[in-house]
């Protein structure tokens, strides 16, 4: 029920839940992980036939907290609150929505900062590198425990979109629709290059201690800040950055010093600092490596069309014109692979000046597409 005191369209007060998994999870790197736990949130109600579930996969720095806010802090609004809620494109009056923090994360699911039950100290550098496929397997186990065999939709932006795509390949019969937003079929060399600079920033921080900084009571804060600053530059378009920050000198005239003089410097420092206070450096390394490794066509000799041939879902692919991190051309590669297999796909290329970040922002064309497509899913799946 929606509390009438809540702002219109909000799922209201939410709370995270935790599930423990005792059976170890086999990983892509050949090892197993477990026992482990996953933290997740749900919004809306699962219908009797369990046909109205939507899984939302998060991107690099996202969490299970997709929508609503926590009772103790009204400002703790979920990262996709504009998309998910009663009357919103992902309408929680019709859909049962799940947000889950991925393994390797730092917001409650088992990750490098979690205690290793054997040594009673954080996993740190011993925590395995994971792949998108590993996450999909873990998410499937969560779905099993919640009694959901088939998702009406699996969706996400950026790295989240890659998980949605992987779902259709790993569990083709368990996904009716995949909504893949601002994603790519794999990273380009340039993308991997950016990730590598970010990782070097972290690992070369003297506080990194080979990944076991927890024991030293420090965090590689400077490295994490730099990694995030670099990331932010790639999430915005040149235009959006210029419009937002310009190049006015804060003091009016040059200081001829290393002080913050331009608005963009102030913004990046602020974003870097904020991020370093809430995010674990090892998690950042794991997430960026998972991005780098993602490449469903690897198994088919680089042929994406053949890799996608197993998919049974219907697809919505969305890209944004000024996204240069995962450009529209990359989304069109996914579309092409689906078309080659005569798979049902809708593709929208949204005019936006917000760069890669556009997938998180309200934009009338974007939201109209999402709303229309999700209404169609609701008609099909939520009887």
């Amino acid at each position, binding site marked *: 029920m929606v509390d009438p005191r809540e702002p219109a369209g909000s799922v209201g007060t939410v709370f995270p839940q935790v599930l423990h998994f005792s059976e170890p999870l086999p990983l892509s790197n050949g090892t197993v992980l477990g026992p482990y736990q996953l933290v997740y949130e749900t919004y809306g109600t699962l219908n009797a036939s369990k046909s109205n579930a939507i899984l939302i996969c998060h991107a690099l720095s996202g969490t299970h907290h997709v929508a609503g806010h926590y009772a103790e802090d009204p400002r703790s609004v979920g990262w996709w609150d504009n998309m998910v809620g009663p009357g919103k494109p992902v309408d929680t009056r019709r859909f049962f929505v799940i947000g889950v923090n991925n393994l390797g994360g730092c917001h409650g699911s088992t990750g490098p900062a979690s205690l290793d039950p054997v040594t009673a100290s954080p996993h740190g550098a011993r925590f395995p590198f994971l792949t998108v496929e590993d996450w999909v397997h873990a998410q499937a186990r969560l779905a099993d425990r919640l009694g959901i065999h088939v998702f009406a939709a699996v969706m996400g932006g950026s790295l989240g979109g890659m998980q949605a795509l992987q779902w259709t390949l790993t569990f083709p019969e368990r996904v009716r629709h995949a909504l893949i937003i601002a994603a790519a079929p794999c990273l380009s060399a340039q993308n991997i290059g950016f990730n590598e600079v970010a990782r070097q920033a972290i690992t070369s921080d003297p506080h990194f201690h080979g990944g076991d900084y927890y024991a030293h009571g420090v965090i590689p804060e400077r490295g994490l800040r730099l990694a995030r600053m670099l990331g932010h530059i790639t999430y915005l378009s040149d235009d959006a950055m210029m419009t937002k920050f310009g190049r006015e000198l804060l003091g009016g005239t040059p200081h001829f010093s290393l002080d913050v003089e331009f608005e963009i410097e102030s913004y990046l420092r602020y974003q870097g600092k904020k991020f370093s206070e809430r995010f674990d450096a090892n998690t950042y390394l794991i997430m960026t490596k998972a991005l780098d490794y993602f490449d469903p066509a690897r198994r088919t000799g680089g042929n994406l069309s053949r890799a996608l041939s197993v998919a049974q879902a219907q697809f919505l692919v969305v890209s944004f014109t000024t996204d240069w991190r995962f450009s529209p051309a990359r989304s069109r590669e996914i*579309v092409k692979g689906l078309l*080659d297999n005569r798979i*049902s796909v*809708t593709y*929208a*290329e949204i005019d936006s000046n917000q760069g890669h970040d556009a997938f998180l922002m309200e934009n009338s064309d974007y939201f*109209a597409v999402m709303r*229309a497509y999700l209404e*169609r899913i609701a008609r099909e799946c939520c009887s």
Partner: protein
Amino acid sequence: MIRADHEMIAQGVALDSRVLDLGCDDGQLMAHLQRTRRASGYGIEIVPERVVAAIRHGVHVLQVNLEEGLSGFVDDSFDTVILSQTLQAMRHTEDILREMLRVGKEGIVTFPNFGYWRHRWQVLAGVMPKSADMPYEWYDTPNVHLCTLRDFEALCVRIGAQVIERRVMGASGRTVELLPNLLGSLAYYRIRARG
């Protein structure tokens, strides 16, 4: 309400066909074909509002620019490729017709006949023609390549397209047999690559 030209197009689409509708507008034609001909396939549309409308009509639509060709599609991947009242608004007229015949076994093209007597009459009277099928003022029309039946057939010869079927409708929506290039306001052609 099904548009008369949509019904005519549907009659040219075999049951269970793979269909590509170029410039699918709000998706009504494609939805009609899905419903009545059990067709599957895609619409292509560039205007955001129309993309949304097509999604609402249950059509899988691809927001790509037709002027850039159909490179996303392999040869012969559709039974029928439709270009419904879109030809006259295309810049690369010849290219899109060639592309249609590459990716589809057959093409269906409909367009307003510039040679329709009311159009000719208006030109004679000294004004640019307007009609139900060409409702625009000369200064805000999206149409850049208007043609007559004879013009279109000459282009078909030029690009190696064979006309399988031609139907011409008058303003009333009835089929015109007599003097079609004069009495027909809307032309319908089913074409294929000359084998």
